[in-house]
C-alpha cells in the first residue's frame, strides 16, 4: 500500500485518548451492553459472552468408510475414527453427524455439493442460487460488530461465501493483510479508549453521499443489478458504522489483546504452498477477532473444491489424486487427515482463549465440512460434518449422531437458529426444510 503523504489526516497517525470537544461514546461495561444485542441476546445470555459462528471447509472430501466413528451416542459410547483422530483433543467438544445428504441433483461436480450444502440451492449459471449459511447468519447478527463477517483462505482461493447469486464475498488469503485489517493501526485494545481523528466524520459523511448515489442509480437498473448495488450499499453501510464505532471504546473483553503479526509472506516451498502455516496464522487471527468481538461470523477455507494443490509428500495435486489414485487411496487419506488436523488447530486456538469459566470455543458453533464425501465419485451422501463448541450449551457435544439419508439442510437450519436468527426454512427443492436437526439440539 502506498505511503500516505500530505495533509490528509491518516488513520495511521491517529491520536488516542479523549480530546475536548470531540464526542466519544461512554464505555459501557460488557454485560450492560448486551441488552441491546437483538438477535443474539437469547443466544448469549446464559454465559454473558456473544455467540459466534465459525465455518471451516476444505476441498475434495473425505473417505466415508474411514470417517465413520465407532459406535453411536455420547461419551464412552462412541470413539473417533481414523480420519477424525486429529480432533482427539476436542472429542468432548464436538458432535459428529454422519449420514446426512445433499439432496439436490449432483450435476456440477464439487459445485453442486458446495452450493447444496452451504446454500441449499443448485448451481445456477455458474453461481450459487442463494446466500450461504455464514451470510444468512451474518446478515442477522453481524450488525453489532466492526465486521459483519470475515472470510479467509489458507490457499489462493475466493472461497464460497455468497450473499446471493453472483454476490461473492472473496476470501482474504494473505495472513499479513488480514492482520493489518484487524489489528493494524486502527486496532484499539480494551481500555485504550476510542480513536480521535477528525477525518472519521468527513469520511462518514462522504460514505453517506455514496449511499445516496448508489440508491439513486439502483432505481434505474434491472433486478439483478439492483441486487449487486444492494450488496455494494451493504458494504458502505458496514464501513460507515465501523467508522462510527472506531471513536467508541472497544468492548471490555479481558481476552482481547493485540496478537503478534504473522509473517509478511508465505512463499511456496519447492512448488508446495505452505498450507498449514498459512492456515494457522489465519486461525490465530480469527480467534482473536472473535475474542475482541470484532466479528461474530467467520468462514475459513483451507482449500477450495477441485483444488489441485500439492500437499506435503503427495506425488500429485489433491484433486488429481482423488480421481486417479487407486486402491484405498493412501495419499488421499493422508491429505484428509491434514485437512481435519487444521480444523483441529482452529479449535485449539478458540479453546485457548478463556471467557469467564469457559473458553471461547464453548461460545461458538463451529462447522467443519467439505463439499463432497468421497472425492472420487463426488458423492453427496455421507457428507463429512462436524459441529464443535456446543454454542453456549445449545448443541450436544461429545456425541456421534448417525442419520443415514437425512437432509443436510436440517443441520444448517439448526445452526442458523442456534445463532438466534429467526429463519423459517433452509434450502430449495428436495433440499428444502422447515425442520432443524433435532438430535443435536439440547
Amino acid at each position, binding site marked *: 500500500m502506498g505511503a500516505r503523504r*500530505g*495533509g490528509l489526516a491518516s488513520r495511521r497517525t491517529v491520536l488516542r485518548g479523549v480530546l475536548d470537544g470531540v464526542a466519544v461514546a461512554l464505555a459501557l461495561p460488557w454485560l450492560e451492553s448486551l441488552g441491546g444485542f437483538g438477535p443474539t441476546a437469547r443466544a448469549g445470555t446464559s454465559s454473558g459472552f456473544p455467540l459466534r459462528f465459525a465455518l471451516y471447509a476444505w476441498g475434495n472430501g473425505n473417505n466415508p468408510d474411514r470417517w465413520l466413528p465407532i459406535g453411536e451416542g455420547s461419551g464412552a459410547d462412541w470413539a473417533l475414527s481414523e480420519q477424525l483422530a486429529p480432533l482427539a483433543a476436542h472429542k468432548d467438544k464436538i458432535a459428529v453427524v454422519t449420514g446426512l445428504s445433499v439432496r439436490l441433483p*449432483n*450435476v456440477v461436480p464439487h459445485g453442486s455439493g458446495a452450493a447444496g450444502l452451504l446454500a441449499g440451492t443448485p448451481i445456477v449459471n455458474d453461481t450459487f442460487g442463494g446466500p450461504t449459511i455464514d451470510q444468512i447468519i451474518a446478515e442477522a447478527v453481524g450488525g453489532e460488530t466492526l465486521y459483519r463477517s470475515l472470510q479467509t483462505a489458507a490457499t489462493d482461493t475466493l472461497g464460497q461465501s455468497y450473499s446471493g447469486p453472483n454476490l461473492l464475498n472473496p476470501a482474504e488469503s494473505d495472513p499479513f493483510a488480514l492482520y493489518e485489517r484487524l489489528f493494524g493501526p486502527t486496532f484499539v485494545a480494551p481500555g485504550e479508549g476510542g480513536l480521535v481523528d477528525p477525518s472519521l466524520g*468527513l469520511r462518514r459523511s462522504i460514505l453517506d453521499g*455514496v449511499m445516496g448515489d448508489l440508491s439513486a442509480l439502483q432505481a434505474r437498473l434491472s433486478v439483478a443489478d439492483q441486487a449487486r448495488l444492494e450488496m*455494494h450499499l451493504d458494504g458502505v453501510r458496514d464501513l460507515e458504522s465501523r467508522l462510527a464505532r472506531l471513536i467508541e471504546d472497544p468492548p471490555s473483553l479481558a481476552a482481547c489483546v493485540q496478537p503478534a503479526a504473522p509473517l509478511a509472506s508465505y512463499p511456496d516451498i519447492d512448488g508446495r504452498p505452505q498450507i498449514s502455516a498459512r492456515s494457522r496464522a489465519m486461525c490465530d487471527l480469527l480467534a482473536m477477532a472473535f475474542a475482541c468481538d470484532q466479528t461474530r461470523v467467520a468462514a475459513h477455507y483451507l482449500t477450495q473444491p477441485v483444488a489441485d494443490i*500439492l500437499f506435503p509428500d503427495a506425488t500429485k495435486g489433491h484433486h488429481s489424486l482423488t480421481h*486417479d489414485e487407486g486402491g484405498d487411496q493412501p495419499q488421499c487419506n493422508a491429505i484428509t487427515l491434514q485437512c481435519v488436523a487444521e480444523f483441529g488447530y482452529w479449535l485449539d486456538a478458540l479453546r485457548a482463549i478463556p471467557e469467564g469459566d469457559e473458553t471461547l470455543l464453548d461460545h461458538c458453533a463451529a462447522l467443519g465440512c467439505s463439499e463432497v464425501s468421497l472425492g*472420487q465419485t463426488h458423492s453427496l451422501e455421507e457428507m463429512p460434518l462436524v459441529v464443535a463448541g456446543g454454542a453456549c450449551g445449545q448443541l450436544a457435544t461429545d456425541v456421534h449422531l448417525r442419520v443415514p439419508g437425512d437432509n443436510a439442510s436440517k443441520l444448517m437450519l439448526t445452526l442458523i437458529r442456534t445463532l438466534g436468527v429467526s429463519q423459517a426454512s433452509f434450502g430449495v427443492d428436495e433440499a428444502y426444510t422447515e425442520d432443524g436437526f433435532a438430535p443435536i439440539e439440547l
Partner: protein
Amino acid sequence: MVRGAWLLGLAACGGDDGTAPVAEVGTPRAPPPAVQAGAPTLRRLTTAQYQATLADLFGPTLILPTALEPDVPVDGMVSIGSATSGLSARGVEQYEDAAWDVAAQLADPAVAARVFTCRGEASVDEACAREIVSGFGQRVYRRPLTPAEVDALVAVAASAGETFGSFDVGIQYAVGAMLQSPAFLYRVELGEPDPDAPGARRYTSWEMASRLSYLLWQTMPDDALLDAAASGALVTEAGLAEAVDRLLADPRARTGVRALFEDILQLGDDLDAVSKDPFVYNAWSVDLIASAREQTLREIEALVVDDDADWRSLLISQRTFVDRRLAALYGVEAPVIDGFGEVELPAAGGRRGLLGHASFLLLKSHATTTSVTRRGLYIQERLLCTDLPDPPAGLNTAIPEPSEDAPTMRDRVEVHLTVPECAACHELMDPLGLGLETFDGVGQWRTTENGVTIDASGALAGVPFADAWSLAQVVHDNPALSPCLALHIFEAATGRVPSAGEEEWMAWHTDGFADEGHRVRWLLRDLLLSPAFRQVGEVP
C-alpha cells in the same frame, strides 16, 4: 441457454467438409439483419481498468493501489464477470482505502498538476473548488457532472478545507469522494431514446466513449474522445467511425488487444495460479509464467496489430517470440540476450502455434503430470465453443498408475474411452489432449513416456491428425474456430452473451469475419460500428 442455442445454430450453418466457405472476390456483403438489442449491462471496472484509469487521471508518478476486490470470471470471461458479480464489504473497504491513498498523493506536485486548474485563495474557495470539481470530475465520471453532484462535492471540499484549514486538503477530500462514487467505479451505460428510430434506444455519446476506450484501450477515454463525446459525434456514423479508426490506430490499442486475448484465452489470474513440482519438472520456475504469457500475447499483438493478418495463424505459426528462458524450454537458440526476440520454430521440432505455447501447456496440466482431459476440454470449450456437459456423479474415476502394461497416458486413460458413461464426453476431449502428449506438464518437448514412444495421433470431428504438428492444422481449419473467437470478442465488448434478438446478426457478422480473411481489426471495427454495439434494450 442463449449462448448454447446460438452455437447450435452456428454449427448447423457450417460446411460438412470441415472447411469454411470462401467468398468470391467482389461479392457485396448481404445487408445486415435487424438487431433486437440486448439489455444494458452495469460493468464495474476490472482491476486492470481501474488501475489504468487512475494512472491516466493522476499521471505516471501515482503509486497505484493494488489491494482490490479480485476479478471474478463468469462464463469463462472476466468481461462478463465484471457485469454480473457483486462487490463485497471487503471490496468497498479496499476502494475506500485506495481512494484515500490516491487523494493523499495529491501532495505530490506532479499529481497535483493533473488536478488543480486553479489555486484556492483561502481554505474555502467555492469558485475554485467548483471549477476543479466540474472540470476534473468530468474526466473521473467520464461524463459531465449534474449540478447536484457538483454541489455535493464542493460541499465536501469546503467542509474538509475548513476542518483542516487548507483548500488543497479540501480538494483531496472531494477527489477521494469522487473515487468512491458509482459513477467512477461502474460503467453506467443505460442509453437514451434514439431520435432516428422511434421506440428504440441507443447508447449516449458519453457512454459510447467509455464503451470504445475500455474495450480498445483498457482505460478511460482520452481528451479527444471526451471532446468527441461532448460534441455528440459518437452517436453519428461518421463521428463513430472516425473515433474507432483513431483508437484502433493508437498504440494503446496494443494494450486493448492483449487484454482481450488474455481474457479470452484465460491467461490472467488462472495462469498466475499455476504451480508445478520442481522435482518432477526441472525446467519449472515461477518466472516461466510471465515469460509464457508474454510470448502468446506478443504473438497476438504481432498478428492483430502489426500484420492485421488472419488471426488463425496463431494456431499454426512457426514464427514466435521467446526470451532466453523460453528458448531453453523449447530447445531453440535465444534470439536476444535480454527480453524477447523473434524466432522461427523448426519444423523438425514438432512445435508450432498456440497449442505448443508454454502458456497453454502450463495452464492445462497438473502439478506433476500433463492433463489430456483439460487440454482437450480447453480446445473444445475455449477455442471451439463446444458445450460439454459436466461429468456424471458416482463413477469410479481411478486410472491405473504407469506400469509395463500401461506405460503411457494413452494406455492409462483408455478407460475414459471404453466405459460408455465416460466416453460420451471424453472422446471429445482426450484424443485432442493425447495429440499433445509430446509436450510435458511445463511444455517441454518429449517423444517418449516411460521409455515408450508416444503415439500422438487422433482425430477431431472426424478429421485425423498424426501428431501435435498436424493437430494444430486441424484446429486451425475447424469451422467453429473463428466464430468462437467472434463470440468471445462480442462478450468482451458487451459484457454479456448475445441475446436471442442478436443471433441472426451474429451469424452475419461472423460470416463477414471469414470473408474478410479472419482479421480481428476488421471484426472489431464491424462490431463497434454495428447496431449490436450502439443500440441498447430497455432495462428488464
